[in-house]
């Protein structure tokens, strides 16, 4: 195992943390994580089973794949279906069903859809094939956006005229605000996303303890990180404190990565964005600034996607808000499985439904 990973997997330390957590949990507590990578850690390492019964772990809208709407996927499909166009995206997006089909299906039907590891790969593809328009379907939270801004600025510096973006980026703190305002579930503490915070730092969460009295702990992704993050939240609750603390100190500085944010704001500006399950959230998306509009795929290509439609009976929306758990969905594990997913929470390896299906839960 890689250095700075293996040290955070010690079972004896996990038992020590679990014992402390049990000792300081004296009432019913709901903690919410808003990052799919945390969802995966919690399921894969059986963390729920280590926690005392009054403590409930809720999964929020933490997977960029899951919160992308059918309308946005339909748009990417319509762009991919044009002739003589390459659409590149992250592997996670391939199997997500839009209203009628997925990118994987249109690729099987002959469209040129490619999976890339880095947005830079899409820029290199455009550079090496100057006659071929390359559209990057850009999905992701604050962690990923700087990599896309960097790739875009590199495309600009190279003078590329055949590189385009569809930006369906989303921002996490506005979604946390929307969840708090909706008051559908009681949230006693937030496990804040470690790698989003590597970029944004701790300041953007300050409104949560200050205005809502809810403690926040920015947490890493190894099993001991998550247990320690939970322990820090419970300590705040037990001591009647509400503040933003950083558990993941080896990765997160309070100021984040200012250069990464500067590159993002050079290329993008905030806009309202539609989230699956949460609807339109003000200032929770990013669109290209006017001076970068020539990279906007939607402006460059005239597309006419079909009217969107939702999948009947799918409860992904409620699951993304932490209002329902996957076993409460009539489709879960019956019509909707990882092999034949109906909703995105089952498609994405970081989806809540996929986690429940794969690892079960108490």
């Amino acid at each position, binding site marked *: *195992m*890689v*250095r*700075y*990973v293996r*040290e*955070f997997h*010690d*079972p*004896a*330390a*996990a*038992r*020590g*943390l*679990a*014992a*402390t957590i049990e000792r300081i949990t004296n009432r019913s507590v709901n903690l919410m994580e808003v*990052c*799919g*990578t945390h969802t995966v850690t919690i399921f894969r390492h059986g963390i729920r089973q280590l926690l005392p019964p009054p403590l409930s772990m809720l999964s929020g809208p933490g*997977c*960029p*794949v899951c919160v992308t709407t059918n309308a946005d996927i339909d748009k990417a499909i319509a762009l991919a279906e044009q002739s003589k166009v390459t659409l590149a995206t*992250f592997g*996670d997006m391939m199997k997500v069903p839009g209203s009628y089909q997925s990118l994987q299906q249109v690729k099987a039907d002959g469209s040129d859809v490619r999976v890339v*590891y*880095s*947005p*830079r*790969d899409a820029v290199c593809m455009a550079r090496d094939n100057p006659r071929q328009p390359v559209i990057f379907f850009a*999905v*992701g*939270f604050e*962690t*990923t956006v*700087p*990599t896309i801004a*960097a790739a875009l*600025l*590199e495309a600009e510096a190279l003078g590329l005229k055949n590189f385009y973006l569809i930006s369906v980026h989303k921002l996490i703190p506005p979604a946390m605000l929307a969840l708090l305002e909706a008051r559908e579930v009681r949230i006693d503490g937030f496990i804040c*996303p470690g*790698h*989003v915070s*590597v*970029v944004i730092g701790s300041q953007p969460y300050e409104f949560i303890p200050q205005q809502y009295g809810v403690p926040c702990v920015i947490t890493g*992704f190894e099993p*001991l990180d998550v247990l*320690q993050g939970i322990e820090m939240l419970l300590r705040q609750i037990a001591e009647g404190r509400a503040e933003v603390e950083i558990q993941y*100190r*080896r*990765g*997160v*500085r309070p100021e984040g*990565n200012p*250069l*990464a944010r500067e*590159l993002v704001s050079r290329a993008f500006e905030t806009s309202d964005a539609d989230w699956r399950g949460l609807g339109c959230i003000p200032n929770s998306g990013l669109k290209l600034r006017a001076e970068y509009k020539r990279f906007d795929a939607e402006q460059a290509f005239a597309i006419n996607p079909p009217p969107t439609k939702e999948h009947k009976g799918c409860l992904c929306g409620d699951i993304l808000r932490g209002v329902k758990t996957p076993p409460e969905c009539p489709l879960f594990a019956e019509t909707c499985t990882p092999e034949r997913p109906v909703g995105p929470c089952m498609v*994405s390896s*970081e989806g809540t439904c996929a986690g429940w299906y794969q690892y079960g839960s108490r």
Partner: protein
Amino acid sequence: MCLAIPARVVQIDEGLGLVELGGVVREASFMLLPDAQVGDYVLLHAGYALQKVDEAEAEETIRLLTELAEDGRAEA
């Protein structure tokens, strides 16, 4: 999707370089972390180094966890 992996910087040349993770060497961009140095551990996400791993903070967390492990062994 927001996974970032600690990787050791092997080489940097004008914003591009190589990092090593668990024996595998791959290309990385340092456009978002221009002050990274060869030998640093960095968090790698989608082909870009996002931040340096703060080794002193990492050691401090590990020290705390080692103490907890002793408590855990005492309970087992």
